[in-house]
């Protein structure tokens, strides 16, 4: 337990000191939010309609693109290879690293995104439901992004491949995240059901992603 805590702390401290983590992801998020009205037009009604979807898509792109840092430095300086010989199995290592990624980019973005919704004229009554759905959904997003990062860790140009591999897997989180955030015409019971399903999907991801990541990392270590 102590070792896991040490691992988590190490990752948090590293991402804090290296910078580039939260800050860049946040900047990217803002850029997408600016581009959206520029592409669609400034009409307030239209923006209000697409605001939850736009925020979700900006969120999942930012989480995805900040993910390659999860393993790349540890892979390059060899500390990941040391971890393969450690007492903690790689599956657990990758779960902890994904958790650290969630704490440093998924969670802050999920909290900030709905608040920035005013830029897209988001209905104010939706801010907190959206935040709840995003906080829960971003766990899954971070873990899937971690899986994508693990699968491409040894590749020189993994970025595009990660997007192709991971974005289709984001589909369920996006769909249930949207309806759990109360957007659209759905009633409260549908919102509650979506929330429950989003929770279940997150659990599935929490089980599948670390196993996949562990196996992928082992394939690269050999």
């Amino acid at each position, binding site marked *: 337990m102590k070792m896991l805590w040490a691992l988590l702390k190490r990752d948090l401290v590293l991402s804090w000191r290296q910078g580039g983590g939260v800050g860049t992801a946040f900047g990217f998020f803002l850029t997408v939010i600016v581009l959206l009205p520029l592409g669609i037009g400034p009409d307030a009604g239209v923006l209000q309609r697409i605001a939850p979807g736009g925020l979700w898509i900006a969120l999942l792109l930012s989480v995805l693109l900040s993910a390659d840092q999860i393993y790349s430095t540890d892979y390059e300086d060899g500390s990941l290879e040391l971890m393969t010989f450690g007492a903690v199995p790689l599956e657990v290592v990758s779960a902890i690293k994904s958790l650290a990624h969630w704490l440093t980019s998924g969670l802050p973005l999920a909290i900030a995104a709905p608040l920035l919704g005013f830029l897209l004229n988001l209905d104010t009554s939706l801010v907190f439901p959206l935040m709840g759905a995003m906080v829960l959904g971003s766990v899954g997003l971070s873990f899937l992004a971690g899986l994508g990062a693990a699968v491409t860790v040894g590749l020189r140009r993994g970025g595009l491949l990660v997007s192709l*591999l991971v974005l289709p897997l984001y589909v369920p989180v996006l769909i249930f995240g949207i309806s759990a955030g109360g957007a659209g015409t*759905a009633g409260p019971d549908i919102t509650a059901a979506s929330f429950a399903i989003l929770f279940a999907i997150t659990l599935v991801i929490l089980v599948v992603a670390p196993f996949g990541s562990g196996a992928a990392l082992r394939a690269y270590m050999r």
Partner: protein
Amino acid sequence: MARIEKFANPTRFLRLQEKVQPWLAAITALLFAVGLYYALAKAPADYQQGETVRIMFIHVPAAWGATMVYAFMALSSAIAVIFRHPLADLSAKAAAPIGAVFTFLALVTGALWGKPMWGTYWVWDARLTSFFVLFLLYLGYIAVWQAIDDYHRAAKIAAIVALVGAVNVPIIKFSVEWWNSLHQPSIMSSSGSSVHSSILIPLLIMVAAYSFLFLTLHLLAIRSELRKRKIHQLQLAQAQKV
């Protein structure tokens, strides 16, 4: 296990493949000939859909093939991971492009069927959308094989990608259907109505034809991959001698 080991032997596989190849090709050609004859000439035009109902005879087999090949690919990957069966990796690799072509055909024929039926080529209907995502999964899988040079590493990573995708396919399908039902209360389905035998028989023949086409091409592609690896090894050996 012993049975699997027998087919794992590449030389034995090659010999077997050579023996069955002409038969498989002949069966495929025959099935296509009979199926197309029924589909284009014998089957009656639908009283509602008119002649466009004939699109179904190539749309449904392609769609069926697309899902079947993905399941097959995931199964091969699982066998590769669990039993370290040397042919299973190649089997999954060889299946992917064929599956991608089937998926693409299912999408295109679906869109072409949609134009006269719905008035537009593309509707974000649940089935079309989930096939779109399936197509992306195929592309990702193929891209993994192309991105990684080392064969064994590529095989491992590709297997992980296929298996994770296989876990996700039902979830994606479920969520897309949910999403569709929220946005489009009236779901149009063609499966509800009972299918008449004059339609069902050519449909089944065409499904069999697509399946046999897959089987034939798949075995041939595995053979090709085996040969390619052998060539690679020989060239390496030669280079080392020099």
